[in-house]
């Protein structure tokens, strides 16, 4: 496609890309759970949540808070969480960020990472608590390596999301 949309079809394509790339990439990150890896310790970051956070922090205006509900439901089904876990935690994250956005005056790379780290920590604790309720009485220390790796992985995921966002809005 040339840089200038020449036809209605091109315009429709551009609109589709702008609209659906964030949603589809988040769903795709949820699908990573189906990859055939068997890991015996919780180490691998929850990429679906990281991608969601990166989109939310980069483009606060594209999603209303309730968009997290169906996305969370899909993640619950793919990852084998008890139904409602990601639905609740993801939507709460969005509501919390709406609140933070209404209070904080400015943001930059480091504050984004800080907010993301806090969100990841609370999300991991929430997932741990749900597992606890479901009868899986693990000490919270077990989740620490995954938490640290998730916080370190966030900038990488954000980098990918920024690249996708450029492509999404490119004309």
């Amino acid at each position: 496609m040339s840089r200038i949309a020449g036809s209605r079809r091109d315009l429709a394509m551009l609109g589709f890309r702008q609209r659906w790339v964030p949603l589809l990439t988040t769903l795709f990150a949820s699908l990573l759970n189906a990859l055939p890896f068997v890991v015996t310790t919780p180490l691998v970051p929850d990429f679906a949540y990281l991608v969601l956070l990166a989109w939310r922090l980069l483009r606060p205006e594209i999603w209303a808070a309730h968009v997290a509900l169906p996305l969370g439901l899909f993640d619950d089904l793919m990852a084998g969480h008890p139904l409602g876990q990601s639905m609740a935690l993801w939507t709460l994250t969005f509501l919390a960020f709406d609140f933070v956005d209404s209070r904080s005056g400015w943001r930059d790379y480091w504050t984004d990472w800080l907010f993301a780290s806090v969100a990841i920590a609370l999300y991991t604790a929430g997932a741990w608590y749900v597992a606890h309720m479901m009868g899986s009485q693990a000490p919270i220390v077990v989740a620490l390596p995954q938490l640290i790796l998730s916080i370190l992985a966030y900038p990488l995921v954000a980098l990918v999301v920024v690249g996708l966002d450029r492509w999404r809005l490119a004309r």
Partner: protein
Amino acid sequence: MAPPSTRRPGFSRRAQYGLFFGYVIAVAGVMFAVLLLLVAVVDPTGFAALKGASLDVTRPITAGGRGVVNFFGGIGGSVRDYFQAGSQNADLRKQLAAERQRLIQARVVEGENRHLRALLKLDQDNPGTVAVTRIVGSSFTSIRRLATLSAGSGAGIRVGEPVRAAEGLIGRVIETGHFASRALLVSDPASSVPVRLVRDGTPALAVGHGDGTIDLKTLEVGQNPFRRGDVLVTSGIGGVYPPGIPVAVIAAVQKDRTIAKPLADPSRIDFAMVLPIAQPLADKPLSPQTQQAVEAAQQ
């Protein structure tokens, strides 16, 4: 970066209401999700059809890629083996000699066992397997330790059935789809398996620790009966797990906890056997005295 102005809908009533109802939906959705979670706590097998269907949908990705992962996982081991061939050969020879002696001993014990069993008139009923399948994936981003099997209710697998590999116990089935099912590994904290020490028969409970190891809980308070290197097998007490399946080997004995490593490492194993639920006592008829007591209580 300044906060984007689009979050504030301005003076338009319509836009303000739209934003407000968005939040109403979000909060209601969170409440609904929490309700779903509570349902899951009360009844963990709820929404089985939905969860089973999603398992089935992702199975092609999971099952198809497993061979690729195994191939790349094997490369590191092969390179190492090549460079250590000499020392490994000597080690293996030594091991083989030791194992040969042990094998002879084991044969003697086996014969003795058969003899004693015949004396005790214990019938060794081999219940067979429900299905032989492959471990194709796991919940690797979750704090829970669950594995995905590439066969489901279509192959006769039911929820609750124990899963083992040649090396030892893997866990038990907790969700089934038609083509895939999900198993709770013995290293998950929600799993608790009645075991006994092979050395002296001390009973214990093997409870998962969540990081790939198992905590051992003795049934009696007192001195820690475990030693490093002890092997644990299922005791069969309470049913579900048939007796005599190797479970774990003790890796470290600390003051207040004993850490064991599962013998079957789900990340290396390919094939898993799903066994029928062991219920030796439930299958047997009640004794006449118990039957009378039950009838009396019913009247």
